[in-house]
Structure formats: C-alpha cells, structure tokens
C-alpha cells in the first residue's frame, strides 16, 4: 500500500504493511454503527429498565447470560496461552500471545459491560465487594472477573506502550520495560484467577439444587460443572484463537503466524477437548443415573421437549465434541488448514451449545410437576446490546492490529516490522 494513503503512518510500526487509512475507516464504519446501536439499546435498558428485554420472572436469565458465558469461555485462550508460554515454557506459541491478550481483554470487558446492563441495579455492583456472600458462586465470579480484568489490562498496557509513537516517550518506555518484566507473574496470576472464574461460572449452575437439570454432585464445595467448565474453556480457548487469527489473516490478506503455531494450538485444543468429552460423558452418566433420579427427575423430564431433546446431548458429544477433537489431533486433518479451521469452529460451536444448554434450556424446562416447557425470544434491545459488544471487540482488535505489535514476534511473517 502506498505510504501516501497512510495518513496515520506515524502511528504504524515502521515497515509494517497496513491497509490505507480510508480502507481501514471503511472497515470500521459498519462496526461503529453496530456499536452505536448497541449503546443506544443499552441506554434504553438503563433508562427504562429491563422491561426493554423479553426476559421475565421465569426466564430471569436470557440471551445475555448465555453469550456472556460463551465469550468468557472463548476468551480463555488469553490466560491459557499465557500459561503455556510463561509457565509451561511453550515459547513457540509466543507469536499469538499479544493477540490472545487482546482477545481475552475484549471478551472479558465486553462480558462485564453486558452484565452491567443485565443487572437491575448496576450502581449497587460494589455491594458484592462490601457485603460478599462467601457461599455464593456469583461472588467468586465477581471477584475473579474483576481481578482478572485488571490483570488483562496490565498485560495489555505493555502492548499498547510499544506503539511507535508512544515508545518515543522515555518514561513510557521505562514503564513498559518494567511492566514487561512482570508479565510472567501476571500470566501466573491470570491463569489462577481465570481458572477459578471459568470454574465458578460452571459452579453457578451446578450448585442449583432446585434445578435438577444442572445440579451436580462434586468434590468439596465445587460441583462437577466447576471442573467441566474449566476444562471446556481451556479446550476451546486455543481453537477460538485459531479462528480469530485465521479471520485476521483473511481480512488483512497476510499470513500472520506460521502454520506450525496453528497446528500446535489445534493439537492442544483437540487433546483437551477429548479429555473434556470423556469427563463430560462420565458426569452425564452419573447425573442421569444417580444424582437426578434421587430427587425424582429422570431423562424424560429433560429430553421430551422439542427442539431441546436428546439431540442436543448427542450434538454436543459427537459432532461438536469427539469429531472436532479428532480433526484437531489427527495429523492428516490437522495439517490441512481447511480441516483444522473446521475442527476449531466445531469445537467452539460445541462449547456454545453447552453454555446454551446450561443457561437457556435449564430455565425452559419445568421444575414443578404442573409446569410447562417455556419459550423465550430475546428482544431487539438484547440482540443489539450484544451486537454492540461484538462490534466493540472487532474495533479494539482492529485498532490493536493496526497500531500495535500483535504478531511482531512472528519474525519473517509480518515482514520487516520495526518498532523504532
């Protein structure tokens, strides 16, 4: 691209190939519109209240909680990649580390933003820190998500400070250098916090004694869903990172990481997914044969309602569980980009379905003997608010890609990049 069309070239790393400023703005334009629509919809919810949604007393959680749980699982690539690089010393994954941090930051901050719209009294959010109920999984969720967001911000700051112009400020350079030394520690703390956060999101449902569909026995204070959510999140995090990076390569028209990085991420994702599917199968067996019957509920209470029948259980286990695990593990398919991306997409879809089942199907199913199966369709305000979060993620990632060294460690790939 001609340098003359890069009006913002002073902010772009020297030698980095980027689209013209106009093209970049045109790319951002629809996302900005979606973001504005989302802000407007969220504003309606703040001003008029949650009556703007289609949630109700029976469907007290709706689309927002489902997608929150989903994007938090997808964002697990951030803490897990940091854990792999800095704790398990898998240095060959370093090229995607900065990208993973941005993905994690947008997923987590986006989820928190939606949660703030989702609660009836957002100004009372600090009460959880002031009057914490230490028995509540939601307290654990709140503490972990808040602390981990801080960690992600601290991990993101060094990336931001490596911008070509910001590096010219000596104090920033020193700060970035000092902060960078802390990154391995932050990776460890982030892994710990996010580990518990993912788990407590699973625990959120697993402890619901009054909802036999999700209630699980466990170990100590943690139901089995605590561990299954962690496992599924770390399994799908690398897959989501593959998809995001592949999408970035498609949009930018450049190869951003070596294929070996994709294959390694895919292999890790596939192995963990296989372990998850096995653990989930054992959990389902115990739940359907012991836990659930002991409180008077059998499989027919859960799987008699179309479309949420046993098809969901099968889909999450085989085509969206075992199949992607095989696609990501087997050398024949893992070497082929198309199959690898298919495997990653199916893995992500499987975890999406799992989170849907836990959040939406749980509330749709009757608990009282004379209850009926319930239906719920989100309002446009709910859809638009979440659309705004997706747009926010794309915008932050696009800006980060353009002005920050997201893939700079991939020497010889994003060619001749210089930060000076």
């Amino acid at each position, binding site marked *: 691209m001609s340098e003359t069309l890069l009006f913002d070239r002073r902010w772009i790393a020297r030698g980095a190939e980027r689209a013209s400023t106009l093209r970049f703005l045109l790319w951002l334009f629809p996302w900005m519109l979606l973001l504005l629509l989302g802000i407007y919809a969220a504003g309606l919810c703040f001003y008029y*209240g*949650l*009556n703007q949604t289609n*949630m*109700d*007393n*029976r*469907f*007290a*959680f709706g689309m927002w909680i489902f997608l929150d749980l989903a994007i938090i699982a997808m964002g697990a690539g951030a803490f897990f990649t940091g854990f792999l690089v800095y704790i398990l010393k898998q240095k060959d994954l370093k090229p995607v580390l900065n990208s993973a941090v941005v993905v994690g930051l947008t997923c987590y901050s986006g989820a928190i933003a939606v949660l703030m719209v*989702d*609660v*009836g*009294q957002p100004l*009372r*959010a600090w*009460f*959880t820190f*002031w*009057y*914490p*109920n230490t*028995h*509540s*999984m*939601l*307290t654990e*969720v*709140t503490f972990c998500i808040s602390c981990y967001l801080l960690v992600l911000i601290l991990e993101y700051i060094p990336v931001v400070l490596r911008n070509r112009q910001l590096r010219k400020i000596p104090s920033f350079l020193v700060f970035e250098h000092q902060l960078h030394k802390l990154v391995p520690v932050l990776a460890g703390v982030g892994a710990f916090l996010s580990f518990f956060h993912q788990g407590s999101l699973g625990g*959120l449902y697993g*402890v*619901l*004694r*009054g*909802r*036999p569909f999700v209630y699980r026995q466990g170990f100590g204070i943690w139901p089995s869903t605590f561990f299954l959510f962690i496992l599924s999140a770390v399994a799908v995090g690398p897959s989501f990172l593959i998809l995001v990076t592949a999408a970035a390569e498609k949009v930018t028209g450049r190869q951003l990481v070596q294929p070996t990085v994709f294959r390694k991420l895919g292999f890790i994702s596939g192995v963990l997914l296989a372990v998850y599917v096995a653990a989930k199968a054992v959990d389902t067996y115990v739940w*359907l*044969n012991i836990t*659930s*019957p*002991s*409180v*008077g*509920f*059998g*499989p027919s209470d859960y799987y008699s309602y179309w479309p949420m029948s046993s098809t969901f259980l099968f889909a999450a286990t085989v085509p969206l569980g075992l199949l992607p695990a095989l696609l990501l593990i087997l050398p024949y398919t893992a070497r082929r980009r198309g199959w690898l991306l298919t495997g990653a997409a199916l893995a992500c879809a499987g975890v999406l379905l799992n989170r849907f089942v836990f959040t939406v199907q*749980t*509330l749709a199913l009757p*608990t*009282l*003997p*004379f*209850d009926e199966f319930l239906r719920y369709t989100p309002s446009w305000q709910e859809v638009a608010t979440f659309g705004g979060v997706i747009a926010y993620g794309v915008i932050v990632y696009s800006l980060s890609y353009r002005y920050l060294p997201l893939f700079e460690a991939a020497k010889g790939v994003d060619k001749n990049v210089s930060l000076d």
Partner: protein
Amino acid sequence: MSARYGMVIDLDRCTGCGSCMVACAAENNVPPPVPRATPRTGLTPMLVRKLSNGKDGADLREAFIPITCMQCEHETPCVSVCPQQAVEVDKSTGIVMQIPQRCLGCRYCMTACPYHARYFNWWDPQWPPGMEKSLNPGVSVRMRGVVEKCNLCHARFHTANEKAAAAGKTQIDPADYVPACVEACPTGAILFGDLADANDPVSTAAHSPDAFRLLARIGTEPKIHYRTTQAWIRTLADKNSDRPTEAQHV
C-alpha cells in the same frame, strides 16, 4: 424459643377466588400492573394457579393451588446464591427474608428457586393518582430493578412484637400475627402457624396423611405444606415426591 412459621394450604377448600392475591398485593404495596405486563412479568408474591387432570367432559377435574415462597428450611436455594447477602433466613422465625435495598437485581435467586416464587420489578412502581394514599405505611415500596417475594407479611410480625413488648410480654400472641392471605381467604383454606410448636394446629395438619410438600425430594424442606384428599391432585402435584427412582423402575 425459635419459631418456624409455615402454612398448610387445603387444596380441597381453595376455590381459586384470588382473595389471597388481592390481600397480599394490598398489604405489601404491590403496584398495579402496567399495561404491558404479562403473567410472567407481573408481581404476584401469592399466585393462585390452576391444576387440571387433562381429561375432557365428565372426566375433567380442576383445582387451584396457591403458590408462594415456600420458606425453604434446608439449604435454602435463594440464600446461598445471592452474591451480596440480600436474602437471609431469620433464625428466630424461619422466614426467608429479602432485603430489596441491598438487592443487585442479578436474578440469580430467581433462577435458583424451583418454585418460581420470586419476582423481579421490571417497571417503576406507580399507582393511579390518589391510590398512593392507600399504601401500607409499614411496608417499604420496592424500586425498579430489584427482586421481591413473600415474607409472610413480616410487617405484621413487627406489629405483633411491638404490641407484645408494650404489654410487657416476650412472646407474641399468635392471634396478632396472621398474614394477609390467611386473613382474606373466605374458605379458611390457609392455615398459618408455628410448625415448631407441636400443639399448633398447623403443625398437626402438616403431619396429617393427606399433607404433602412440592418437590419434597429436592431436600429444601419447604415450610409451606399442602393437603388434599383427591388422589388426582396428589398424583399431579406430588409426582416428584412419590415417583420411584429410575433404579426402582428397572
């Protein structure tokens, strides 16, 4: 001595007239529903639901079942999940209390409640001009964005305590503490009292052979009991209590 207030609702006597719902709303300052409200977005701390045996013609049987907070005694589902201690069990009465002023409005407690007895204030509370003069001064009006539920007319419990204290007594007179729904029921279908007191009629009724509790096998020990002599109601409403386990099926 700690009390365990509870109810025994006689389904054979309930005519589904809805007096209990109206009395509950008036006593507890429940605002009139907005035009957009639906049965699933309204505020009905006491809700009379219809039961049917699902048959036609002469075989059709119908009954009514008032559903309210079950005041779960054991591992109260809504208490343990609330992130900021806005729900608690009053140890001296066994009443599950909601503190709307502390409620975040996250609705996790509503998800946790298997009886669907918790309600969210989806709208700002509003009364037609002049009607606000009829509000009960002993009960706080809840704002938009918080959860509420039946607290067994706790304001009446306070009033009974004040009366007892003024008379120099440490125990309330049971006749002074009667929830509005119990008072309003024209057929006397709702029996209220102290389940911990073996001599209390409610305690005797709760232990009668025709008494049962909803979802008893979940293990939350609800303090709202039901009774009926009609087998079809018992079969329908109590199926999760009576149903054999899957293993027994085999």
